């Protein structure tokens, strides 16, 4: 074989090799899941002395879980406002991370996002929502964020002015954090493991002496309404994630809404090479957030919904998409 042919073959091989983001993202998500819930290791190895970090990241990570080592920014913002303290550090963190990487933490770090990704992978296909419903749905999360900040903000103001004690009593458990009380991450990583541990302890006594229907009904009616609501939300979360990929991130998550505000103007983005792009819909089909990538500007796009998961970059058969920073 001649030297020119060999050189040409090497060039072809180089062109054929394309870096895939799927594996690095999976590794980061797995590591983040373990790091965020690192206190679970103290249950397995009691001699370990781990404590939660007094700092938050823009992810869903609940204070309600005894395993959480790194809390979510919005949880800490709500808790600080209920003190009442102005959350300077948490807002600074959100601004900083939002401006630099936008919603990348939703796609790479958030444990709830990872759980939804696993569900979508198990299902093996992506369902599409009608554009009209999708557009309306994406606005809903801003409403959730507004409601959370409205309740926490007015409570903080009332407490600061010294007139909020009645308001705080009226809000009850929602005073410490309106969204913390119902968020599925706390239920999934906090409540469910505890319920399962209790169920395991009582399993054999249950088998030895099964309760009658009346006894079972009496026990069911003793379940706290808030616990029942949390479990219903968790079941709905799983059902929705099965039906629509990243349903929670798209339509409900207030942390996602908070970061989406910054995503539009963040340094991180994706560019589309108009010469290589054949306008085939591979990138749009693979996008878990259902973004109309081909309608966005090619120089650099920062859709508010983009979680920088790089699925579109991997999906493009022509290699026309690539991350761009800044």
């Amino acid at each position: 074989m001649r030297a020119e042919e060999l050189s040409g073959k090497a060039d072809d091989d180089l062109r054929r090799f394309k870096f895939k983001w799927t594996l690095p993202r999976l590794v980061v998500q797995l590591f983040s899941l373990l790091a965020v819930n690192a206190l679970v290791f103290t249950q397995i190895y009691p001699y370990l002395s781990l404590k939660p970090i007094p700092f938050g990241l823009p992810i869903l990570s609940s204070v309600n879980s005894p395993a959480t080592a790194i809390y979510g920014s919005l949880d800490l913002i709500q808790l600080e406002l209920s003190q009442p303290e102005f959350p300077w550090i948490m807002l600074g963190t959100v601004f900083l991370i939002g401006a630099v990487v936008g919603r990348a933490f939703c796609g790479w770090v958030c444990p709830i996002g990872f759980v939804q990704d696993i569900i979508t992978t198990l299902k093996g296909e992506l369902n599409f929502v009608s554009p009209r419903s999708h557009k309306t749905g994406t606005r809903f999360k801003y409403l959730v964020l507004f409601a959370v900040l409205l309740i926490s903000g007015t409570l903080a103001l009332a407490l600061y002015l010294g007139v909020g004690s009645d308001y705080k009593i009226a809000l009850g458990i929602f005073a410490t954090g309106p969204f913390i009380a119902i968020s599925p991450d706390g239920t999934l990583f906090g409540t469910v493991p505890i319920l399962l541990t209790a169920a395991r302890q009582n399993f054999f006594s249950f088998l030895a002496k099964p309760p009658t229907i009346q006894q079972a009904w009496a026990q069911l009616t003793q379940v706290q309404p808030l616990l029942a609501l949390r479990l219903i939300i968790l079941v709905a979360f799983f059902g929705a994630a099965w039906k629509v990929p990243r349903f929670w991130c798209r339509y409900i998550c207030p942390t996602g809404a908070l970061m989406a505000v910054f995503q539009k103007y963040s340094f991180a983005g994706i560019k589309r090479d108009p010469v290589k792009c054949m306008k085939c819909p591979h990138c749009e089909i693979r996008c878990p957030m259902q973004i109309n990538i081909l309608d966005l500007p090619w120089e650099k796009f920062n859709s508010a919904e983009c979680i920088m998961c790089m699925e579109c970059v991997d999906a493009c058969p022509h290699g026309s998409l690539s991350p761009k920073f800044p």
Partner: protein
Amino acid sequence: MKRTIAGYTVMLGLTALMIGLYLGEFKTLAEIVRSYTFLLP
């Protein structure tokens, strides 16, 4: 234009962080983390 906005956002974030550090907000956060873990069943 977008990069300018992102730049100003970074500056705002850093300023907020500095104010928080100056006011000793980490003590509040540490207290919250210590006392508010596991609120619900």
